[in-house]
């Protein structure tokens, strides 16, 4: 059976802060001891640079680094490890696709289709690319529940569409988008699709090969791994046609002052010394996530989400923002006229960590005509008791601000 109490023992932060109720998992998750140890062990026992190292320790570091690449490929169902590029985060992964894939292909009058619920990073790079090339950013609308309308979505695709970029799971609304259908619609028109998996990589089944997705991006730190590690999956057929946009050591085949011949992917996209310790820690995060039965995890997160939704709805003035049928464990809400920052401050004083604000989805806030929400988001170590406690404090906040 899935036992969050047992799982908590893997996370040192809960022994150091027994009072902590951490509900800010969409921002970043806590780290299990195995990930933390992998990083310190690397530095304490075998720290070297990768590439070109002849002595055993260096060869072993290079090998471990490449093993994590293979592990990542396996984790998301990629056919080849050469389809995995390590970056510094989802943000860097998306910017790399924008610069190296989209911009060289984009022409005046072309279009890029995103959705209304995108995180700023899955919006601004495309917006700026369109601005640069005289192309158009097309925004697929959502309904009040926070769901895409697939009919409209389909109608926005045309021969002008050069890329579709959508999030798998919304970090603000929790909406799980129908990636399969979107991919099918886009591929019928030969439009490549980037899926932002920042919020899905930790707990969802990812199978890039089965989905036939063109690019899939995510961050280590949102799936129990270290900060400073991002992943860019790209189909081999795309990678081999893309030119690097960042340059440096180890990404080259030959360099002369007149000319450079670049290495093959993925190496050409990873110039310089990578975040070696981070990547090795990330390998442990994959092992950690893979050690659980995905069904059990899903069921647990769903129970937490259902309980929280139920409890919150009972509090006077609470309005849940994002009520899609298909939802991940993320709940945004407003509390009457109480500002989300006041809510978060009160929760914080009771050791309950939540996020407040626009969650890097400002245009989505504009759609709902609100300046922000309070957001709770769950991970595998959260418990039903934590949800109960959170709901009690929210009720207190409501009473405090509305004069009891």
């Amino acid at each position: 059976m899935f036992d969050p109490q047992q799982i908590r023992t893997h996370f040192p932060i809960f022994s150091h802060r027994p009072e902590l109720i951490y509900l800010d998992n969409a921002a970043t998750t806590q780290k299990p001891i195995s990930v933390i140890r992998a990083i310190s062990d690397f530095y304490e026992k075998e720290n070297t640079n990768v590439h070109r190292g002849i002595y055993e320790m260096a060869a072993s570091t290079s090998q471990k680094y490449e093993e994590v690449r293979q592990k990542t490929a396996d984790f998301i169902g990629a056919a080849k490890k050469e389809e995995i590029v390590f970056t510094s985060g989802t943000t860097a992964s998306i910017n790399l696709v924008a610069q190296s894939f989209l911009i060289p292909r984009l022409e005046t009058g072309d279009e890029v289709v995103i959705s209304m619920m995108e995180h700023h990073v899955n919006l601004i790079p495309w917006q700026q690319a369109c601005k640069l090339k005289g192309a158009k950013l097309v925004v697929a609308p959502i309904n009040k529940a926070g769901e895409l309308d697939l009919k409209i979505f389909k109608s926005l695709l045309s021969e002008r569409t050069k890329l579709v970029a959508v999030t798998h799971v919304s970090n603000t609304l929790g909406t799980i988008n129908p990636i399969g259908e979107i991919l099918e619609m886009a591929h019928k028109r030969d439009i490549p699709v980037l899926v932002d998996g920042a919020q899905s990589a930790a707990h969802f089944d990812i199978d890039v090969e089965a989905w036939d997705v063109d690019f899939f991006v995510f961050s280590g730190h949102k799936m129990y791994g270290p900060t400073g590690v991002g992943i860019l999956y790209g189909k081999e057929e795309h990678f081999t046609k893309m030119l690097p946009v960042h340059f440096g050591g180890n990404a080259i085949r030959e360099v002369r002052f007149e000319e450079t011949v670049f290495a093959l992917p993925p190496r050409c996209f990873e110039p310089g010394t990578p975040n070696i310790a981070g990547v090795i820690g990330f390998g442990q995060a994959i092992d950690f996530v893979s050690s659980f039965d995905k069904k059990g995890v899903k069921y647990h997160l769903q129970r937490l989400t259902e309980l929280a939704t139920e409890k919150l709805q009972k509090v006077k003035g609470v309005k849940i923002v994002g009520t899609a049928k298909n939802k991940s464990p993320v709940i945004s809400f407003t509390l009457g006229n109480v500002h989300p920052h006041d809510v978060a401050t009160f929760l914080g004083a009771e050791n309950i960590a939540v996020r407040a604000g626009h969650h890097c989805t400002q245009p989505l806030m504009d759609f709902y005509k609100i300046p922000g929400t309070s957001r709770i988001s769950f991970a595998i170590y959260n418990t039903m008791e934590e949800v109960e406690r959170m709901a009690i404090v929210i009720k207190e906040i409501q009473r405090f601000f509305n004069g009891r």
Partner: protein
Amino acid sequence: MDDKLKELYKSVILEHDRSPFNYNKNESAEHIIQAYNEICGDRFDIFFDVKNGVISNICFHGYGCAISKASTSILIKKIKGQPIDDAKKIVDLFLNNIIVNNSNEIKDEEFTAFSAAREFPARLKCATLAWDEMNKFLTVNGK
């Protein structure tokens, strides 16, 4: 409820949050200052005229948390009808003696209520948002 929190959300702050002072728009004002915190999205516009060196017709409008709204409201109330130089002294008093130093000599509860913000580093900016912007204006426009 947490004591530090009670300190922060003193009744004077809650009152100003619920019934802000001169809370309305005046797009034809001589001066419109925008106090915007890009980190959290709080935004207040402050409207006023300066007649013979005196701040007049001051009001504000916008959106923010209880702390930033109350602190803007109190700013408006305090500098309304003041000559620029006196307004600057009031702003300095607030920023230096309440926020930075927590001076014991000041008894005005509309000021002292905000000293508790120092216990909440993430909220300090809320207490000073409008004051910081007004300070810039007064520094440039004073003599």
